[in-house]
C-alpha cells in the first residue's frame, strides 16, 4: 500500500446557496473536513447606491436606502434623514420622532425575528422559521397600514415622516406588546434549550473583544464579546435618552451568544415601544422644511444603531441639493470581514452556523 494521497480541495459555497441569504459566494479550501482558507466574494448585488445618490436630491435617495438592509428599511431611512437633519440643524416635531422611534423598534423586532427564523432554518430546524414569521407578519402588516408598503417603506422624510399613524394604529401597536412578550417565552422555549442546537452553536465561532474592536465590529457581533457599546445609549439620537431600556451583552462571543442577544434585544425593543406608545404626543408629523433641501457645504457623519450594527451616513456637501459624495457605513459589510478569521481551522460543518450568526444582509454588504 502506498502512502495515502492527500490534497486540498476547493469548495464553492454560493452564490446561490440558500444559507447565504442572498447572493454571497464563499470559496473555501478544505483539507479533509477542515477549512484552511476562506475567500469571500461579494458584490453580486452591487447597485452603486453611493454613485446614484450623487445625482439625486436628498428626498429621492430615501427609497434607495430601503434597498440596503431590506429587513430593516425603517432604520435605514432614519440613518439618512438623521444625517441631513443634523447637517441642516432641523427641528423635528415630537410626534414625528415618536413615530420614527416606534417604527424603528418594531422593525428591529421584525429583523431579529427574521434572523432567528432564518438562522434556525440554516441549522436544519424548519418550525422556528414559521413561528417567527407569524409575528413578523403582524409587524409588516402594521407597516403596510402606516406607509403602504410591506418591505420598502420610504416612510421617513427630512424633518419628519410622510404619514401620521392611521386611526387605531397605535392601539394595534399597544396590543402587540403583550402578545409579543408571550411569544418570546415560546420562542425561547422552542429553541434556546434544544440540545442539538446548543451543540451546534455553543463555543463555535468565538470572537474575542480585541478582535472585535480591531475588525471594527459593531452591533450584536461586538456586544456578544461582552463589550457594552450601543449607539442608542453611547451617543443617543432620536429620543432614546428618554426611555428606559437595557443593553444586553454576551459573555463568550460565540454563535450562541449572538443568537441569544437577538432574543434579548427584542425584549428591550418591546419595552421601548411600550413606553413610546404610552407617551406619544399629538401634533404635526412633518417639520418646517424648505421645499428644496440644501445641505450647507461641509462634511457630516452621523450613525445610528441599526439592526446589525453601526449604520452611518457620511455626506460631503457643496451646498447644493444633491450630495457631492455620500458614503454609507454598512454594518454587514464591515462585520462580514471577520468571517475568514472565524472559519479558518473550523470544521466544514460549522461553516453555516458561523456564517449565519454573523447576521448579514447582502443588500447592505453590496450596497
Amino acid at each position, binding site marked *: 500500500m502506498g502512502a495515502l494521497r492527500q490534497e486540498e480541495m476547493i469548495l464553492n459555497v454560493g452564490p446561490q446557496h440558500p444559507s447565504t441569504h442572498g447572493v454571497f459566494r464563499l470559496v473555501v479550501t478544505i483539507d479533509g473536513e477542515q477549512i484552511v482558507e476562506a475567500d469571500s466574494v*461579494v*458584490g453580486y448585488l*452591487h447597485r*452603486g447606491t453611493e454613485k446614484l445618490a450623487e445625482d439625486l436630491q436628498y428626498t429621492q435617495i430615501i427609497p434607495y436606502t430601503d434597498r440596503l438592509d431590506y429587513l430593516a428599511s425603517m432604520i435605514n431611512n432614519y440613518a439618512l434623514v438623521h444625517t441631513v*437633519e*443634523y447637517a441642516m*440643524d432641523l*427641528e423635528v416635531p*415630537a410626534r414625528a420622532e415618536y413615530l420614527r422611534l416606534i417604527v424603528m423598534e418594531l422593525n428591529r423586532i421584525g429583523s431579529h425575528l427574521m434572523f432567528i427564523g432564518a438562522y434556525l432554518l440554516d441549522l436544519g430546524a424548519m418550525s422556528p422559521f414559521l413561528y417567527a414569521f407569524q409575528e413578523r407578519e403582524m409587524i409588516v402588516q402594521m407597516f403596510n397600514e402606516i406607509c403602504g408598503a410591506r418591505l420598502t417603506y420610504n416612510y421617513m422624510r427630512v424633518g419628519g415622516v410622510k404619514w401620521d399613524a392611521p386611526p387605531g394604529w397605535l392601539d394595534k401597536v399597544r396590543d402587540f406588546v403583550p402578545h409579543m412578550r408571550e411569544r418570546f417565552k415560546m420562542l425561547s422555549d422552542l429553541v*434556546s*434549550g434544544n440540545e442539538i442546537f*446548543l451543540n451546534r452553536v455553543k463555543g463555535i465561532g468565538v470572537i474575542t473583544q480585541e*478582535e472585535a*474592536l*480591531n475588525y*471594527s*465590529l459593531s452591533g450584536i457581533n461586538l456586544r456578544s464579546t*461582552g*463589550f*457594552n*457599546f450601543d449607539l442608542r445609549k*453611547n*451617543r*443617543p*439620537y432620536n*429620543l432614546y*435618552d*428618554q*426611555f*428606559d431600556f*437595557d*443593553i*444586553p*451583552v*454576551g*459573555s*463568550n462571543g460565540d454563535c450562541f451568544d449572538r443568537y*441569544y442577544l437577538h432574543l*434579548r434585544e427584542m425584549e428591550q425593543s418591546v*419595552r421601548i415601544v*411600550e*413606553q413610546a406608545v*404610552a*407617551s406619544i*404626543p399629538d401634533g404635526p408629523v412633518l417639520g418646517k422644511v424648505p421645499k428644496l433641501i440644501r445641505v450647507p457645504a*461641509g462634511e457630516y*457623519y452621523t450613525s445610528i444603531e441599526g439592526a446589525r450594527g453601526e449604520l*452611518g451616513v*457620511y455626506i*460631503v456637501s457643496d451646498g447644493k441639493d444633491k450630495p457631492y*459624495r455620500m*458614503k454609507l*457605513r454598512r454594518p454587514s*459589510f*464591515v462585520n*462580514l*470581514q471577520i468571517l475568514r*478569521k472565524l472559519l479558518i481551522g473550523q470544521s466544514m460543518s460549522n461553516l453555516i452556523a458561523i456564517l449565519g450568526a454573523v447576521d448579514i444582509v447582502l443588500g447592505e454588504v*453590496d*450596497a
Partner: protein
Amino acid sequence: METQQDVVETPASGTAPSAPEGKAPATNSAPPTAERAPESAAPAVPAPDTTPPPAPAAKPAATAKPAAAAAKPAKPPAPPDPRVVAATATAEEIRASIAAHLGADAVEDASATKEIPILRIAREKWRQTVEFLKDRPEHAYNYVELFAGTDYKDYIEVVVYLYSTEHGSYIHVKTRTPREDASLPSLTPVFAGVNWEEREVYDLLGIHFEGHPDLRRIMMWEEWNGHPLRKDYSDFENVPSREGGQY
C-alpha cells in the same frame, strides 16, 4: 435540563434585571417639557450655529437658540461654540504630541467639526500617524468607525473616523493623494477592519494602497474599466464589451 438553566443564565449576567413593566417614570412624569428640552439642548445636534462669531443672528436657527438658552440657563450664550474651541484645542494638542514623536511635518492641518477634532496627515506619514494614535495609551484610538474616500477633482481625500473605547473620544484623520497614480500606505496592518474598506476605495476610487495584503476589486469585477466614484467617470466609456472578453 441542566443545559436549559445554563442558557438562561449566561448571557443575562451582563444585564440589569428588567424594570417592572408599565410606564417609564422618566418619560411620563414630565411629558412636554422633557420632550422639548433634550431635543434642542442635548445630543449631537446642539448649538452648532454659534460656531463662528459672525454667524449667529443671521441664520434661521435663531429660533432654536433661545429655546436652548432657556432650557439651560447655566450655559452662557457665548459667541464661539465652546465645543469647537475645545475640539480645536484638542486637535492642536494631539498635533503637538504627534509632532514630538513623528516630526512636525506629519500633521498638515488641525481643525474641528462641530465637536470633533480633525487632523490632516501628510501622505507619507499616514500609517505611522494612525498607528501612533492607536498605540499610544494617552490617545488609544482603537476603533475605526468610518473609512471613506472622496474625489475632490484636484486630489482624492481619504478620511478615517477613529474612536477610543478607553477614553470615549473621537477624532477624524484625513489625508490626500493626487489623482494620478493615486496611492496611500495601507492601514490594514494597523486595523484589520479596514481591509475591505480599502478594497472598496481601491475599486471605486482607484487609490492603490501600498502594503495591503489582498488588494483586489470588491464590488466590480476584475476586468472592469475605471473607477466609478471618480468624478470624471463616464458610464458610457467604461461599459465592458462582451467581445472583449470582459463581460
